[in-house]
Each structure stands twice: as structure tokens, then as C-alpha cells.
């Protein structure tokens, strides 16, 4: 099985009940940078995700060795996928992205972690580029 859409966060996600560890990654549309992370244990728990590099080309961070170890990463470029959580609860025009705590996924084993970076360049709320221009009015 080359790639999985089901991921296990053994440590859970900060702020969520610790038992919620299993999630499904759903692409919203072919070629779209937006994804949805659905809890497989609670229908009401989900996150909108983006591939951060589509919106923040300069985004980079060092994955701490202990995180890499916990994820069982052996060949980083091939096995890794990075996503960031979008907060669109204040409306799409005001959507923000959490660049401080990316989701790091091992696409081979399906193990994933939300990594909290020690990087002063990033916060939990960066405006999502382009949304103010492309989001349409109404619907809210």
C-alpha cells in the first residue's frame, strides 16, 4: 500500500480529547490545496487543512529529531507530508493558518503528529493569502 488516507495521531491533538487519534484525510477537490481532516471517532470533529507551501512558499522548519523518530521517518522527502490547520470560523475572508503547529504525516506508516515548533517566525494565526480577494460574499 503506497499511500494511506487514514492517519493515527498517537499523541492526539492538543486541545482535543486524547482518545481522538484516528483521522481520515480527504482532498476537497482534485488539485485543490484544501483538505479536510475528519475524525473517525467523532463526526463533529474535523479541521480544514492546507498544503502550506501552496500559500507560503517561504515556509520552512526544522523537524526536531525526536519528532522525526516518533514518526518513524527514515527517508524524509518520500515519506513526509506537511499540512497546516486553517481557522475559518470567523468567515472565509478572515481565515487564518496555524504555521506554528504543522501536522506532520508519515505517508507510509500513517503515523502523524502535530508538531509545535520553537520558531519565532511563526504564530498560530497567519492570514490565509488570497482569501480576501477570492472569497465570495454571502453564504454566511
Amino acid at each position, binding site marked *: 500500500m503506497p499511500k494511506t488516507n487514514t492517519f493515527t495521531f498517537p499523541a492526539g491533538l492538543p486541545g482535543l480529547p486524547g482518545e481522538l487519534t484516528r483521522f481520515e484525510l480527504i482532498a476537497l477537490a482534485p488539485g485543490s490545496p484544501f483538505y479536510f481532516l475528519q475524525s473517525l471517532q467523532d463526526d463533529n470533529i*474535523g479541521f480544514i487543512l492546507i498544503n502550506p507551501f501552496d500559500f507560503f512558499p517561504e515556509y520552512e522548519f526544522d523537524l526536531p529529531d525526536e519528532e522525526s523518530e516518533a514518526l518513524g521517518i527514515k527517508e524524509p522527502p518520500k515519506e513526509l507530508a506537511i499540512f497546516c490547520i486553517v481557522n475559518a470560523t470567523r468567515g472565509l475572508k478572515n481565515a487564518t493558518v496555524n504555521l506554528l503547529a504543522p501536522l506532520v504525516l508519515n505517508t507510509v506508516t500513517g503515523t502523524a503528529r502535530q508538531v509545535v515548533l520553537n520558531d519565532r517566525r511563526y504564530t498560530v494565526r497567519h492570514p490565509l493569502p488570497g482569501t480576501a480577494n477570492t472569497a465570495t460574499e454571502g453564504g454566511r
Partner: protein
Amino acid sequence: MLVLTRKKGQSLTIGCNIRVVLLDITGETVRVGIEAPPEVVVYRSEIYQAVRDENKSALASREMAARLKDMASLETSSEPKE
């Protein structure tokens, strides 16, 4: 809360495999070294709290995601990126 007094260079052992070392004390700033197994994650508390709060705040429904999907098709049609 357990309160212990330690001096610079002294340490604490928590459980079997966590060691906290008081490396340096300058004025009000304390440098702390932590040795812990990889499954034990260590964060600055205020940063971890910010991530917790943000995760709770960002919880989304599929309906909300579906609205983004329409927006996403606009994004990707105008500037395809890998």
C-alpha cells in the same frame, strides 16, 4: 503542587526516565535542560496553550470545508502550483 528548592547545576528526576537540570540562573531567567524519552513532548506552556486554544477554535464542519472547496477551485485555476 510539589515545591522543591534547587541550585544551579542540580537536577530533578521525574519518574524513571525524565531528568530536569537547572543549567543557569540569571536574574529572573532560568535555563532548564530536559532529558526525556521521545514520546514525552516538552513545550513552553504558553505556546502549548496557544496551540490548544487555536485547535479548539479552528474546529470545522464538512459544510464549511465545502464552501472552501469552491474558493479553492478559483485559486487553483488561476495559479497552478505544485
